[in-house]
């Protein structure tokens, strides 16, 4: 290839002498083919341009070139701007002259022709201004980029000639002076060459001389542009393709073997008819045409058509997780399973639907595997284990149903845990169960229809709610994220209210969303913040890039399978925190965030504290409580219940001790930290034990730490038998009592601290409730933690109100 190119260049060089037969004035090649450009990669564009320019110079069909009269002088070998443009349009089928002018300007800037009367600006105009072709010798990329010797000779030559016509420009003078300095040793030779060239030029005819001079000058105008003018011939330091030529030569038999093998595999590939392939491409475009904002517009309008000062509504309507999606968006979910699950809101609705069908373990599994595949290397073994215990192990809490063959394969893969361990199982679940079964049913379901009919049409006037707050507050970094965070807050709020409402249809829940959203954003704090900050802290870590947020946003409501709350709990956060911390050479940022979480004062799971940094927290909290009270028992019962109450009766705790003996505890939606992190109900108990059974002064112990230590316990005590567990449960219940009393004593202290403790007391307390309920439900077939009924308000909740007032 290289050789072929060289010969073709040589041929062109030869041809170059033809058009005007003037080459005498050209600088000698002082260093033949020594410098850069020859060896590097010649862009194909130059071949195309050269071919075109050669066509242009065709005597019969080219651009008409003749001596042009300008006033009294005759200008040899020139052509007019509009002749050139017309020729280009005709020969290249260009419809609009703008394009031809643009192309002509490009060619001019590359130095294929140049304006006769303007030596500074390389601009082509569509008028009678005159231009002249450059001789091929001076074409760009013909030999190499010119060196300074040549430039020095050229400049020296001009100083030797008529001052009036050849005087140097200021920048050229400067260049000459610096060259004189740099090339001082060679300056004698340079002057000699210059003198020689001037002498030779004198012998030529006047017309030829004018043409040659202008061409040489234009050449240097291109290669040594005046300051402030850019050149298109700037060399790129990246020598493309250099590695290739050498590797081609040393291509050995192994590479060839590989190529042959690859080609063989290509032969056996199954292909479809071109018509089939193209038809599906066309169909795809037809199908998605209405969703293409650049072709079909956006509702309410394309954000980029707005002024920077205006509010881009489009992004608010379409942020990743919304309460009420737009109608267009919901319709898109029906196009394909990929469209559904790649949209966070879509994935959420799908999960909600599957949950109603008690069929959600597949989508959870699929999401977990997807997350695994994109996890950091260090997390792989842990996550593989988690997934196995969660979904595959016999009797796992979310056991999925896969055929024996796939199971076998997966177990085989388990021996070497990798990102791809569960791929075959996930593939099975995705294509056979989700895509062919669940997805079509979802699209036909009333749930989907309800979402669709409730969806909004953004073209209608703003009837959007609750959005303004978070967006305006966080104008700085990323408004969109803030907006989505706001939505998550709302979603979480709804989750909490849901647990209060017990079983309700989704469409109804949406209603409650709205009412709570308003209050939540108004208050700017309160219980809803908890999940808000969860999602935020998760954003910083991004352990679950796709589905994680959605899960985290609704840990409370969706707590069907303990697995998905694992990402939400601050306990999980802390265990993960160490990773991002080490990630950065100076990892102060993420680290700091987590350290706030670890702060004993703020309390682990109450990351609301970390968010509401400082003293206003107490006030806000109080006002929020009051607000919630006013919201009356219907709207808010669940949350305040979970909220604390140091005084929350030891009596009720006692009741529950009895209950516990017979029942399995269940993790309740509004439980946080430890429970959320725990694997299954059984363990959630054990995980609390280090803090409780040990009777350590919990009040001063940061709960998140207790959680991480709980993990260890969890692992060691994973095998413990039921009896032992029950014992622990008992112990724990006692601990609850003690704690609650302790908490009561200290309630009067700083708000912050109290809250930290509330957290602690809240956990065991709400646990107690669960057990209480679990007892009631123990005979039911329904998986206890799936049953929303169990979230119903119980007597103890009433008392919490009193506590709130006390606060």
């Amino acid at each position: 290839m290289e050789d072929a190119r060289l010969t073709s260049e040589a041929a062109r060089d030869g041809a170059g002498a033809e058009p005007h037969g003037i080459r005498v004035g050209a600088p000698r090649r002082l260093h033949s083919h020594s410098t850069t450009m020859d060896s590097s990669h010649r862009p194909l564009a130059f071949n195309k341009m050269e071919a075109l320019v050669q066509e242009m110079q065709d005597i019969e069909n080219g651009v008409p070139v003749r001596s042009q009269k300008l006033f009294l002088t005759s200008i040899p070998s020139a052509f007019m701007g509009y002749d050139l443009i017309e020729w280009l349009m005709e020969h290249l089928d260009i419809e609009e002259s703008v394009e031809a002018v643009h192309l002509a300007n490009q060619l001019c800037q590359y130095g294929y022709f140049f304006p006769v009367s303007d030596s500074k600006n390389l601009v082509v105009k569509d008028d009678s201004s005159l231009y002249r072709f450059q001789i091929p010798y001076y074409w760009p990329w013909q030999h190499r980029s010119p060196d300074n010797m040549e430039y020095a000779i050229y400049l020296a030559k001009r100083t030797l000639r008529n001052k009036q016509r050849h005087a140097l420009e200021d920048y050229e003078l400067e260049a000459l002076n610096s060259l004189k300095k740099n090339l001082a040793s060679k300056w004698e030779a340079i002057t000699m060459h210059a003198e020689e060239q001037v002498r030779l030029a004198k012998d030529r005819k006047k017309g030829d001389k004018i043409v040659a001079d202008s061409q040489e000058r234009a050449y240097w105008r291109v290669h040594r542009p005046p300051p402030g003018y850019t050149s298109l011939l700037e060399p790129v330091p990246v020598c493309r393709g250099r590695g290739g030529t050498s590797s081609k030569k040393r291509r050995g038999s192994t590479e060839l073997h590989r190529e042959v093998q690859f080609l063989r595999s290509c032969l056996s590939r199954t292909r479809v008819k071109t018509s089939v392939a193209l038809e599906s491409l066309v169909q795809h475009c037809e199908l998605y045409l209405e969703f293409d904002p650049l072709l079909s517009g956006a509702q309410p309008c394309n954000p980029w058509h707005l002024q920077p000062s205006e509010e881009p509504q489009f992004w608010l309507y379409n942020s990743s997780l919304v309460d009420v999606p737009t109608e267009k968006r919901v319709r898109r979910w029906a196009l394909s399973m990929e469209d559904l699950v790649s949209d966070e809101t879509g994935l959420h609705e799908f999960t909600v639907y599957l949950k109603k069908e008690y069929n959600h373990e597949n989508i959870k599994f699929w999401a977990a595997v997807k997350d695994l595949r994109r996890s950091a290397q260090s997390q792989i073994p842990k996550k593989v284990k988690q997934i196995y215990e969660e979904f595959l192990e016999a009797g796992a809490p979310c056991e999925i149903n896969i055929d024996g063959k796939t199971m076998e394969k997966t177990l085989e893969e388990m021996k070497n845990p990798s990102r791809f361990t569960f791929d075959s199982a996930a593939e099975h679940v995705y294509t056979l169960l989700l895509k062919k079964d669940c997805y079509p049913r979802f699209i036909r379901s009333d749930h989907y229809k309800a979402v669709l009919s409730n969806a909004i049409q953004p073209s209608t006037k703003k009837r959007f709610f609750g959005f303004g707050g978070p967006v305006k507050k966080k104008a700085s970094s990323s408004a969109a994220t803030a907006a989505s965070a706001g939505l998550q807050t709302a979603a979480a709020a709804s989750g909490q209210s849901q647990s209060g409402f017990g079983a309700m249809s989704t469409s109804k829940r949406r209603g409650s969303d709205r009412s709570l959203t308003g209050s939540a954003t108004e208050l700017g704090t309160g219980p809803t913040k908890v999940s808000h900050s969860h999602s935020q802290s998760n954003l910083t870590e991004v352990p679950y890039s796709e589905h994680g947020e959605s899960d985290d946003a609704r840990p409370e409501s969706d707590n069907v399978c303990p697995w998905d709350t694992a990402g939400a709990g601050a306990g999980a956060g802390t265990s993960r925190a160490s990773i991002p911390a080490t990630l950065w050479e100076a990892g102060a940022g993420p680290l700091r965030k987590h350290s706030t979480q670890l702060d004993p004062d703020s309390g682990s799971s109450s990351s609301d504290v970390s968010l509401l940094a400082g003293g206003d927290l107490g006030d806000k909290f109080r006002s929020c409580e009051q607000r919630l009270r006013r919201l009356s028992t219907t709207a808010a019962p669940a949350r305040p219940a979970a909220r604390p109450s140091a005084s929350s009766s030891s009596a009720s705790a006692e009741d529950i001790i009895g209950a516990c003996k017979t029942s399995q505890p269940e993790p309740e939606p509004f439980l946080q930290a430890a429970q959320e992190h725990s694997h299954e109900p059984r363990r959630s108990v054990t995980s609390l034990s280090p803090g409780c059974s040990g009777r350590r002064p919990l009040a001063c112990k940061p709960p998140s730490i207790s959680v991480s230590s709980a993990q260890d316990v969890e692992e060691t005590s994973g095998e413990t038998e039921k009896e032992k567990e029950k014992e622990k449960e008992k112990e724990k219940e006692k601990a609850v009592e003690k704690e609650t009393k302790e908490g009561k004593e200290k309630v009067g202290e700083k708000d912050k601290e109290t809250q930290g403790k509330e957290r602690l007391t809240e956990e065991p307390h709400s646990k107690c409730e669960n057990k209480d309920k679990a007892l009631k439900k123990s005979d039911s077939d329904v998986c206890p933690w799936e049953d929303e009924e169990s979230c119903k308000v119980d007597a103890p909740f009433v008392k919490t109100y009193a506590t709130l007032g006390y606060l």
Partner: protein
Amino acid sequence: MAQETSSKFDTIESLTKEADALKLRLEEERQKLNDVTIATVADRLDVINFLTIKVKRHLKGHQAKVLCSDWSPDKRHIVSSSQDGKMIIWDAFTTNKEHAVTMPTTWVMACAYAPSGNLVACGGLDNKVTVYSLNTDDDVSTKKKTVGTHTSFMSCCTFPNSDQQILTGSGDSTCALWDVESGQLLQSFHGHSKDVMSLDLAPSETGNTFVSGSCDKMVLMWDMRTGNCVQAFEGHESDVNSVKFHPSGDAVATGSDDSTCRLFDLRADKEVAVYTKQSIMFAANAVDFSVSGRLLFAGYNDFTVNVWDSLKCVRVSLLYGHENRVSCLQVSPDGTAFSTGSWDYSLKIWA
């Protein structure tokens, strides 16, 4: 000794012969199924003649050629890198600069946003891929981490749907997948014989494939899991500067130094369309599809952006605006706009 060399020569010769024969057969096989052209299939579609795309934002602030840019997943921020080693994070909507980082190298040829929007990766002539965290209000440059190193310049990089991994392409003619946290090389991809210029991930979330374009004129499809090349497309006459998956995931568009853009279909296993015009003679540096896949935007060395109807194979619009070559072009994540970066030191948002 002599015998040895001759036998080796023989095998190389025979292997070359076999490879050539296989190539011929492959081409035959492909031609057998080549029953129709794209233009005839697309005949039933309406002509696009209502396109009014204009410059909506002009991002000025770089002091040198803009070489690469990438949209943030939040749909309004952009990271761009330039020849002088600067990397700038823009709020493209307001045109404000939010961060500026000076890299210890010139020609930062690649930059990419992580899916979370909290990290950016970049690199270039330093042969490295460096990750910066955008998570704090502090100076971004203080939180950096070098993840991977190639033996030649890094020309392109992307996060494969995860903040934990980076996929890079390099002038050393390989692609590589790195673990961000540990800097471990998870997988390398050998197969190109010259510089890799561009790569793109398959749009399917479950997909494990990506495509790369190289100066060896080849477009290769890779299995990220095994590191094997699974499909190869030939057709370009010069360097492939840009590759992009069709939103359907069934085809790949390319932009090349031979001034054409092409469309290769994965299932038909062949080139199905060439987007070219006699009047276009400069290299196409970057291509991207609109959401539906109907429009193909391509940025060229002649400062222009050509908008192609990918199915009818005609140009629907020619956009002027930049004053030097268009080095990068990308449609925003929600398809509402596309960005271009240019050697004229600026970026533009078109919608």
